[in-house]
């Protein structure tokens, strides 16, 4: 189960509207990066048949089955830190992550 905060949903909906196409957001992991896994966050133009689809606050989040175990239970949030802004993940599966948090290891 993946959830998305209302604030994050608003931003995703906004990005999709400005982009002019797309059915939702793909959230997943890839094996790369300095600590093993890396998050992947992309617009989705077409769903794959095997995708898990989670919907909250009117935004669809698509996750491929291989990624789900690593991120199950994650909540997506959109935050502003000083001048910087972007998406942040509260992933309960993380054991450790690299300094910047762009890549991580699971338990």
């Amino acid at each position, binding site marked *: 189960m993946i959830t998305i905060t209302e604030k994050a949903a608003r931003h995703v909906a906004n990005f999709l509207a400005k982009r002019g196409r797309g059915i939702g957001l793909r959230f997943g992991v890839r094996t790369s*990066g300095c600590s093993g896994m*890396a998050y992947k*966050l992309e617009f989705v133009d077409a769903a794959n048949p095997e995708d898990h689809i989670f919907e909250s606050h009117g935004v669809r989040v698509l996750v491929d089955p291989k990624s789900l175990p690593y991120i199950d239970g994650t909540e997506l949030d959109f*935050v502003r830190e000083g*001048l910087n802004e972007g998406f942040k*993940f509260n992933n309960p599966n993380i054991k450790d992550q690299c300094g910047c948090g762009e890549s991580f290891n699971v338990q």
Partner: protein
Amino acid sequence: MALLQISEPGESTAPHQHRLAVGIDLGTTNSLVATVRSGMAVVLSDELGRPLLPSIVSYGRESGGGGEFIEVGYEAQAKQSIDPKNTIVSVKRFMGRGLRDIAHIETMPYDFVAPDGGVKAGAAEGMVKLRTAAGVKSPVEISAEILKVLHRRAEAALGGSLSGAVITVPAYFDDAQRNATKDAARLAGLNVLRLLNEPTAAAIAYGLDNGAEGLYAVYDLGGGTFDISILKLSRGIFEVLATGGDSALGGDDFDQRVFCWIIEKAGLAPLSASDARMLLTRAREAKEYLTLHGEAPITVRLGSGEYVDVKLSTAVFSEITRTLVQKTLSATKRALRDAGLAAADVKGVVMVGGSTRMPQIQHAVGELFGQEPLNNLDPDKVVALGAAIQANLLAGNRAPGEDWLLLDVIPLSLGLETMGGLTEKVIPRNSTIPIARAQEFTTFKDGQTAMMIHVVQGERELVADCRSLARLELRGIPPMAAGAARIRVSFQVDADGLLSVSAREQTSGIEARVEVKPSYGLGDDEIAGMLKDGYTHAADDAYRRALREAQVEAQRLLEATRSALAEDANLLSESERNHVDASVARLQGVLVGDDRHALDQAMAQLGQATAEFAARRMNQSVRRVLSGKKVSEIQI
């Protein structure tokens, strides 16, 4: 943890691989920085949410002999009236310019320092400098202060160090001005991915580069400058066909008109400086108010105790600023004419600059081109947004297979000086850049061991009418007969329009090269003037070229005759020798002058006079080669 942005499908970059890149609009009045975030170009604001950074730098020294301090942007703007000498406004006008290039220099409050007399290596040679409370500063250093602030803002907003930046420059900026801009960026610690023409950036922001091929106009009315550019898009490449404008026309002039109208309407006596400033601010506010309203109330109590209460209607505002709008339209028509186009040929019109928000401008431009101009992006931000999109592509944040690169063209032909002061064009104007071209040249005199290569820019046939860019000397050419040496001269223009020239003697491999960093800039007027001269003097130039070519040929002939006489004078009888000498003297006599006919005749006469001599020399050298040899030993 780092904050993530959304990527296009399949374009996620590996961790730490997403390269942070920004576009910077380094403007005359205001500067901006933008980036692409989650697929969208956005302008990055400061801590107070202000997107614009006034392009103003103020230098000061703490009282009591303290250290220097530098303020940039709004803080510096506040210093403008208190300390005008140390507060540099519109430094862009000084970039890459010498004292002579700057218009109205006598009205400026700055303490200008003439450039050093000696020619030194480096981009700043010949560029004007300003003496400030913090020492003598070059326009490059002053611009770098603005860029540093934007650099810091971008890194704070993006949470990492930048991999590169695209910086915009006016389409009419020449090599000196572009170089100065690049140097300022380097000084600010920015890696310049490339410089991009402002109108091209605006067109990219509107996605025109992905759209239909055709002609586009970019109408840019800023605070103090007006620029019109005609672009041609073909195969994803923008070519600047023509530029024009007025470097002293902008939104400020509209404020001034309103200001004068208020004084007249309210019957005000001459104002104190502070009242004038206050009234000018009210005038600007009224102008901005009229963008969305039909009537602007102007009420102000002056320091003199007088009370002003007038209403400015849209109709009156249009009337009092009609001549200003007309000026921009005339410049636009002129640019169209220069490009050989009619308004109807233009496929789309892009509006740039805050002043294009004025409804009467939208209307007038729409009427001229017979179509609604593109104006749905913020006209203050559109150049920075386009630069950000280009920066994102150049930094490598794109899908594989989408590997295109936007190109520009060079505004004036590049070439070199050949014998007789003639221009040999190596790269013709309007060639797309980056480009590299090479041409082979040879020596003029027997045993010549050095060659001076003079790099020039312009459309005219004679070097004297073109602009000198650089000279380089190739030394150590092995002594050979005239015409035997093969010297390959390569011209290379990189993606920023910067030129490097190298020369290589092919047999010995000796090489010389020069990076062109010209000391003086050319304005758009001058470029336009040089182009026009090239057309109007075409016939004249052709005659002069033919004349110079004949003169060079005559010199070569004289040179050859002289060396032949020095070697084999014994082959001639005294009367023959006298005849040759007389012909040489006659040719010598008409060499300087502009009678091509006489030159041709004298050359023909010398040719005849030496024909027999040449034949005898030929026979003699054949005899020398053959004497004492068997037929079988001779290789043909």
